[in-house]
């Protein structure tokens, strides 16, 4: 909780610090890290109901495309909202069809969804197809730090919702659904509704993050926006940081993206090998994630 607040505070004041010649690069990396952390926080919300999603890369991509297409007509903030809503609505349809599936089967269904979305965006007449889609910067480029602060805002929103949910009564419904679905139902937990709600909130946040990402990279292609890599990142980060927590995905996202960027600078091509080794070692020696370093006993209340 304190750590979450502290990290957000640092994010807010970072552009004001004397960062020297690396400033632009650092802010750019930080912005990307915030968005990926928000995506990881969103993924973790659904994971709390016991569902493993491989569609979060696609929700991120859908949000990115929807926001990019809506921005010229609606302006930046409404366009971002459209991105979130499009991702949330698509999760409602996907959820109605698949949330009765469990574990592996749900994961496979979400993977199929991602592929369908990528193909749709590739073939649709208004998305630029394989050539890609140029995107306007946030607020038409009027504020150089606009995109950065939008990323901070999305991260704060995701962290806030994550904290709020772990303190609400819904926390018990989600945890019960994860730890024993049949028992949860017999105890009166409306399991399907709980899962759908978690899925929609989760996809909405992923879509928001995707929209800000689009306005940061200024160019979208279906291969980048719907790549499986981002879906994998969305689940690796919470596992690395600590599942079912707020600190875990947040801290995990910042560390992993920084690490990835630093390794790429240092060793170029081979960075993925080192990155993989670090992940494997962490998961082997810290199965409950980074947060287990802070409090050895607690079972998911950070």
């Amino acid at each position, binding site marked *: 909780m304190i750590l979450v607040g502290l990290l957000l505070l640092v994010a807010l004041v970072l552009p004001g610090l004397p960062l020297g010649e690396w400033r632009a690069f650092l802010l750019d990396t930080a912005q990307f890290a915030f968005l990926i952390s928000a995506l990881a926080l969103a993924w973790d919300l659904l994971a709390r109901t016991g569902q493993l999603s491989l569609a979060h890369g696609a929700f991120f991509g859908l949000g990115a495309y929807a926001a990019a297409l809506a921005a010229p007509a609606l302006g930046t903030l409404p366009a971002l909202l459209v991105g979130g809503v499009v991702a949330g609505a698509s999760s409602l349809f996907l959820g109605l069809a698949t949330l009765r599936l469990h574990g592996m089967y749900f994961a496979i269904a979400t993977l199929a969804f991602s592929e369908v979305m990528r193909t749709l965006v590739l073939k649709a007449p208004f998305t630029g197809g394989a050539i890609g889609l140029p995107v306007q910067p946030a607020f038409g480029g009027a504020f150089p730090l606009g995109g950065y602060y939008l990323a901070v805002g999305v991260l704060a929103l995701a962290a806030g919702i994550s904290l709020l949910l772990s303190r609400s009564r819904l926390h018990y419904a989600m945890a*019960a659904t994860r730890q024993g679905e*049949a028992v949860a139902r*017999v*105890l*009166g937990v*409306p399991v399907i509704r709980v899962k759908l709600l978690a899925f929609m909130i989760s996809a909405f946040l992923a879509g928001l993050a995707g929209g800000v990402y689009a306005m940061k990279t200024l160019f979208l292609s279906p291969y980048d926006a719907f790549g499986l890599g981002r879906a994998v990142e969305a689940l690796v980060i919470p596992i690395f940081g600590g599942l079912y927590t707020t600190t875990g995905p947040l801290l995990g996202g910042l560390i992993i993206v920084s690490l990835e960027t630093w390794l790429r600078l240092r060793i170029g091509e081979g960075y993925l090998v080192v990155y993989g080794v670090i992940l494997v070692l962490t998961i082997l020696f810290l199965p409950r994630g980074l947060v287990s370093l802070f409090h050895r006993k607690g079972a998911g209340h950070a």
Partner: protein
Amino acid sequence: MLSVQGLCKRFGGVTAANEVSLQVAPGEILAVIGPNGAGKSTLLNLLSGLLRPDEGRIEFLGQEITHAPPEVRTWKGLGRAFQIVQPFPEMSVWENLLVGALYGKPSTPRKVAERVVAEVIELTGLAPKAQTPAGELTLLEDKRLELARALCTQPRLLLLDEVMAGLRPSEALEAVALVRRIRDSGVTVLFIEHLMPVVRALADRVVVMDYGRVIAEGPYDAVAANPKVREAYLGRAQ
């Protein structure tokens, strides 16, 4: 209170429940007994909504619930404790109970739910273990938790699936006293049990099942003397 008519459930070629009909009166303790594979657990799963019947009708408190989902039955006051105890392992005992108390009745305020948990945790003797992770309980404590969690949903009728299985005789005695206390607090009880001394001690009435059918019904002594029941348990005399 509960009325079951002509309930059938088939799994492929096996008929696990065949024209099962029974009535449960308010305030009674009804035992359902029968040899392994008689269809007792299937019956309980049909009653609590984890299985849907192929035929038949279930009424609870005058309302039809034949196809209602499990959570809706719980909201109406039909509680259930499982044979294989399945605590939420990452939660404490208190949190396990809180799930039942928060969701057993729709939109129960947190304060009310915590009061229910406090009462139930006293009644079931789990108070000293309130903060223990549910994954670290002994078998007896597990069974108590299972029962307590069902009680937290504030049932009018409680379905108990072999909650005494695996307990030592002294522990079973304690559990019998606990079930009596639950009934005395105004909860009707339907339970499945293998241990005949427990059935004799607790049940006002006994229903005997074999091969998915109800083969006998009545007070314990009458049922125990019934030749059909003896045959079901001991096999036909050659």
